[in-house]
């Protein structure tokens, strides 16, 4: 019930070029994942499942896709009279600069939202991560440890070492207090990576943002968390579950393939609440006589007459006779025509792979076909 007194803030990230074509026209938080979801569905559902009913989504780049997806928040039960879903794209007014100059600046620009709310706590989380977590446990820990700020981290041993250099790396002491925090270090000293979830009191956040703005500092991690390490009691909360940040093509591809694993799928979809997303009213998937589908995820609205193996098919995908899809991700509304084949490929929305064409990428370098492209 404590979560009722908590605001959720979702940061939807900067301009990520490591996702290449996938984020060309969409926010990294709006990247389609797992057959029917967008990345942001996971954090949003986590918040809703934790009882948070007042949620702000801070956007900057390519936010139209995100706005389309979230709408009034109906699917997450966030079309409310009190609280609900708020979208905060940058805007121009009196003294504001318009464009957000950093994550702290983005929050500062929407200080009114924080000030006019009356919830005691704030959970800040990222929109582009796939995981299942109830924030209740984190808040309980935060209160029990008498922390000023609690940062959720995780042992990132299951990531490639080079990925650690793109994360915030933490050092915690025996009491779990964070004693060092390196943002994107070239040589990470530990494997404890921040998952970008922070809990603190709303009043504290307001004063930290005001202080930072007064100094002309704009970054939440560098200018607030790291600068305050020695002045505030900043605690680490270790999360042991599955977690992936969809920050590069490789991570994106692997995360989708991870969902073929029943243990990961169970953790994400069958425990601690459901994952909500925008509904599309498609008919159940239809398999014709020639369909040969194995170890794959298939969404509603697909019509399958070909072979599909180790792949993720989003809603409304057509796989025609003789087509072979292996180790690939095929997004909504795409069509793989007769006798064409894909291997280690990502086909964005509404693409067409015409008769007999063949696409082949590498496991670590999947080939990408951009939205609406006909190959």
């Amino acid at each position: 019930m404590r979560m009722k007194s908590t605001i959720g803030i979702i940061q939807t990230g900067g301009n990520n070029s490591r996702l290449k074509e996938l984020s060309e026209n969409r926010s990294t938080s709006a990247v389609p994942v797992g057959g029917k979801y967008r990345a942001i569905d996971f954090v949003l559902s986590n918040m809703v499942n934790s009882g948070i009913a007042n949620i702000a989504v801070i956007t900057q780049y390519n936010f139209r896709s995100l706005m389309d997806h979230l709408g009034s928040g109906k699917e997450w039960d966030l079309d409310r009279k009190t609280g609900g879903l708020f979208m905060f794209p940058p805007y121009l007014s009196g003294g504001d600069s318009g464009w957000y100059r950093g994550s702290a600046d983005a929050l500062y620009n929407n200080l009114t939202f924080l000030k006019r709310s009356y919830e005691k706590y704030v959970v800040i989380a990222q929109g582009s991560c796939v995981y299942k977590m109830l924030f209740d446990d984190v808040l309980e820990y935060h209160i029990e440890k008498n922390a000023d700020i609690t940062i959720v981290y995780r042992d990132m041993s299951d990531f490639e070492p080079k990925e650690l250099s793109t994360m915030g790396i933490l050092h915690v002491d025996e009491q779990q207090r964070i004693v060092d925090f390196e943002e994107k270090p070239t040589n990470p000293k530990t494997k404890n990576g921040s998952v970008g979830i922070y809990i603190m009191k709303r009043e504290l956040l307001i004063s930290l943002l005001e202080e930072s703005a007064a100094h002309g500092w704009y970054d939440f991690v560098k200018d607030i968390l790291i600068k305050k390490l020695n002045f505030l009691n900043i605690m680490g909360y270790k999360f042991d579950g599955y977690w992936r940040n969809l920050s590069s093509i490789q991570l994106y591809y692997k995360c989708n393939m991870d969902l073929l694993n029943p243990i990961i799928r169970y953790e994400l979809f069958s425990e601690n609440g459901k994952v909500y997303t925008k509904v599309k009213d498609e008919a159940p998937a239809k398999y014709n006589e020639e369909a040969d589908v194995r170890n794959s995820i298939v969404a509603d609205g697909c019509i399958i007459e070909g072979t599909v193996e180790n792949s993720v098919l989003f809603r409304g995908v057509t796989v025609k006779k003789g087509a072979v899809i292996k180790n690939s991700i095929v997004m909504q509304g795409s069509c793989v025509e007769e006798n064409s084949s894909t291997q280690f490929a990502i086909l964005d929305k509404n693409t067409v792979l015409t008769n007999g064409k063949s696409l082949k990428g590498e496991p670590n370098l999947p080939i990408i076909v951009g939205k609406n492209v006909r190959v």
Partner: protein
Amino acid sequence: MVKKEIIALLLAGGQGSRLGVLTKTMAKPAVLYGGKYRIIDFSLSNCLNSGIDTVGVLTQYQPLRLNSHIGIGKPWDMDRINGGVTILSPFLKEDTGEWYKGTANAVCQNIDYVDKLNPKYVVILSGDHIYKMDYSGMLEFHKKNNSEVTISVFNVPFEEASRYGIMNTHENGKVYEFEEKPQNPKSTLASMGVYIFNWDILREYLLKDNGNAESQNDFGKNIIPMMLKDERSMWAYRFSGYWKDVGTIQAFWESNMDLIKRVPDFNLFDHAWRIYTPNPVKPAHYIGSTGSVKKSIAAEGCMIYGSVRNSVVFPGVFIGEGAVIEDSIVMSDSTIGKGTFIKQSIIGEKVAVGDNVKIGIGDNVPNELKPGIYNSGITVVGEKACIPDGAEIGKNVVVGMDVGYEDFSSLNIISGKSVMKGGECE
């Protein structure tokens, strides 16, 4: 307030007793159909797709499932400020109060609802049928012919005509005679139970019919003949396309199977005429490395490790390794154990079938207790039943709702037998 030109009244109170255990706890319109829908979704979606945003749903028999399915009408865009969906159940009046006696009586008891909206036309629908129809075309026809009542008809094969209400018309479509189940049919135009009336005229006839103690208060049996006798302007509107009254176990099964052919008789994939229903909150379905699905439809949330052929699988179904499902319908959230074989059966919601079970084997012997219902070789397992490992179940068997392991006196249930909760026989 924007005045409504037309509103719909959807008759959803029918029990559908020939669907046996499928309608034990829900009215026929609430029965699951087509991999994710309930039968009533088709009429409701037709309304939405035809531009009708005000629908009164008349319920009577076991309305709980229907009420929670419809809710405030969100999936059909009927959560409106002006209009929307209203559930109309029988209610007590100051000095009277009674169940709906017939279809016409049901509407008659809700005259106040229609009067308040004051539409020019009312379309009367049945929530029992599977079809896609644009009621706005029918309304155009109704207006063009200065009709007072228009009845939607479709052509049936001559030899089946005696099972329907048959409209005898002039060449231009004007109706001069209506015959209920005629022995020697003069035409093959069968009524689909879809009527458009001018409200003022229908209102008058409803009251007249209600005053007649002899009447069965039925549209087909009483209102239409009465209007014909008075030489009211009555027209038949021809519908061509898929239309099924899934009134029996066999018709229900066949109609589900109509969805799985390469070019299905009934197309659910038409984006210009979507069928809406509350969407389950479940991930896309997963086919395991040992799984195989052919000539079937499968909905979200399923996990399929076995083999599925010629079947319809609803959301959240688990099918274990080595299981074979053929020519069957498996409804939401049921679990099929490893190595189990199911043929020509209807498995209800939340059923747990154990490992190495066989269902639908043996001779085609009609059910001993209810030969009128279970006689087409199809075995039906009711909601939430549990079937123990190794059980062998024949054809035309019915396993009742909530049946548990203890209700199986033997693991061998031969064709035509029934297994009921607590051994009860209805």
